[in-house]
């Protein structure tokens, strides 16, 4: 369980976040949405210690994040980052997922059979078992995201944070990855651009604008044109399609 309240963050001369708040919800997928530059990724980075807020509190299971070692933070929170596996050293999928187990072993300990089993289970859950020996540089975008999620599963942390996991993916993989996150039933926070995906795969949404959470609640309540139009500066129309709603966007007709 992570709770962030009253987060102020200044990067250089820019106020990125001012008074933002966000929490995980048990067993649910929380979507973090908002326009470019609204502070979505920055807020997520505050939740695992990558960025230190200037004001406000981040609590992981009631402990202040500032008082925790990076290792104990990582035991509580797994992250699908944006930098992972795109650049950096060229190792196999299996080794990459295995490194997620580092949080459970001290520096001098080697990995054990438990660790290798956790890796196999993780890869199995994302349907990537046959890729264990493949280089992480030779994966398609969708495969890469699934490997990153497998690493989080192997890490066995009770919370997963995902920083724009659908970036650079084609439509099919966007759905596949988010459907996978939903199936995990782990407390998760996912940064998303696409409001249609957010509406379909999230249990709860937080809408960020200029570093502030301006709306929060069930997708149906947040994704209303009165809420979205002032934030995005575009016209939003909801179209009903069976159990799901879809959104059509156009310039504001003023």
């Amino acid at each position: 369980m992570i709770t962030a309240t009253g987060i102020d963050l200044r990067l250089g001369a820019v106020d990125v976040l001012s008074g933002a708040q966000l929490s995980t919800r048990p067993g649910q997928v929380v979507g973090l949405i908002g326009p470019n530059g609204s502070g979505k990724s920055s807020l997520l980075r505050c939740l695992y210690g990558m960025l230190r807020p200037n004001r406000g509190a981040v609590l992981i299971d009631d402990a202040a994040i500032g008082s925790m070692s990076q290792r104990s933070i990582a035991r509580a929170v797994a992250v699908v980052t944006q930098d992972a596996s795109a650049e950096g050293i060229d190792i196999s999928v299996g080794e990459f997922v295995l490194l997620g187990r580092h949080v459970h072993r001290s520096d001098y300990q080697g990995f054990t059979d438990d660790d290798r089993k956790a890796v196999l289970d993780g890869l199995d859950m994302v349907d990537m078992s046959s890729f264990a020996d493949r280089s992480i540089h030779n994966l398609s975008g969708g495969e890469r995201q699934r490997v990153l999620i497998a690493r989080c599963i192997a890490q066995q942390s009770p919370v997963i944070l995902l920083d724009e996991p659908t970036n650079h993916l084609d439509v099919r993989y966007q759905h596949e990855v988010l459907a996978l996150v939903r199936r995990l039933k782990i407390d998760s926070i996912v940064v998303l651009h696409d409001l249609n995906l957010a509406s379909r795969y999230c249990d709860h949404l937080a809408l960020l604008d200029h570093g502030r959470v301006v709306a929060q609640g069930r997708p149906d309540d947040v994704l209303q044109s009165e809420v979205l139009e002032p934030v995005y500066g575009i016209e939003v129309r909801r179209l009903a399609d069976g159990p799901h709603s879809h959104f059509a966007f156009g310039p504001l007709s003023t």
Partner: protein
Amino acid sequence: MSVVVAIGLGPVGVAPPTVLKIIGHHMMGLFDAESWARTDDAIIWEVRLPRVLLGAIVGAALGVVGVTLQALVRNPLAEPYILGVSSGASAGAAAAILFGVGSWLGRESVSLMAFFGALGALALVLALARSSGRITPSRMLVAGVAVSYLLSAVTSLLILFAESAEGARAVMFWLLGSLANADWSTLPIGYLGMGAGMILVFWWRRRLDLLALGDETAMASGVDPGRTRLQLVVVVAMCVGFAVSLSGGIGFVGLAAPHIARRIIGPIHRHLIPASAALGALMLVWADVAARMVLQPRELPIGVVTGVLGAPVLVALVRKLSHNS
């Protein structure tokens, strides 16, 4: 094997079996000392063996330091002297040789001044590379290059002011490196210092894997990249300080050994660290043999040999990188 043959080679050749006998005699009192020439004995035991042993530990340390720095700054061209440590050591040694700075340190004042010069350069680089308490790869690279240039200029200035040809030659020794100063009295401290450094780096092998993957990935896996970088840099500087103060600034081994090892054994540091150590040791021991043999009886500076052998490796590497991208 390699060591025994390497000991035997040089302006005065000694056959491997004799080498083994002489070493056996000194270490365990085996064999009859009358069965080989006294000069062979002195050459092997007093000159060659310490020299090969020094070459092995310095080569291993340079290889491990190269691997470490390449992971830390996430740049395949990083090498042990990227932190300005070598130019710092040279400046320290130049000050000691040419102007007698630190002569109160006693007989080893030049080595000690080189050591302090190395650590001073590192402190300067770290001070410049820190931004809000964290060390980022790009700042570290730039700071290292800047400090290197500054201290090279200082060394040139010292040589210019001293106007002593003999002194200038002695300073060249530190710039190009040589194993000729090896002797039994300084070997143990070198082995201790560099050995401890290499063990620490191996201890942190998985942190190197994670740092090489990216700062966010490291953070998400419980490794604080800024702090880990600082710890590793200090260990690395100690290693390089010992290496440079015992043998000068020997170039290219720290760049070439990790790259060749990576080609053979892959990028996982659990394997890469020991492989780079072994390869670095092998390369330096044989480069020193070449330094002794090529122009005999004169001796080439070992930095010249490693440069001539290392440059093609670097070129091949750059070509391969541009193919990939």
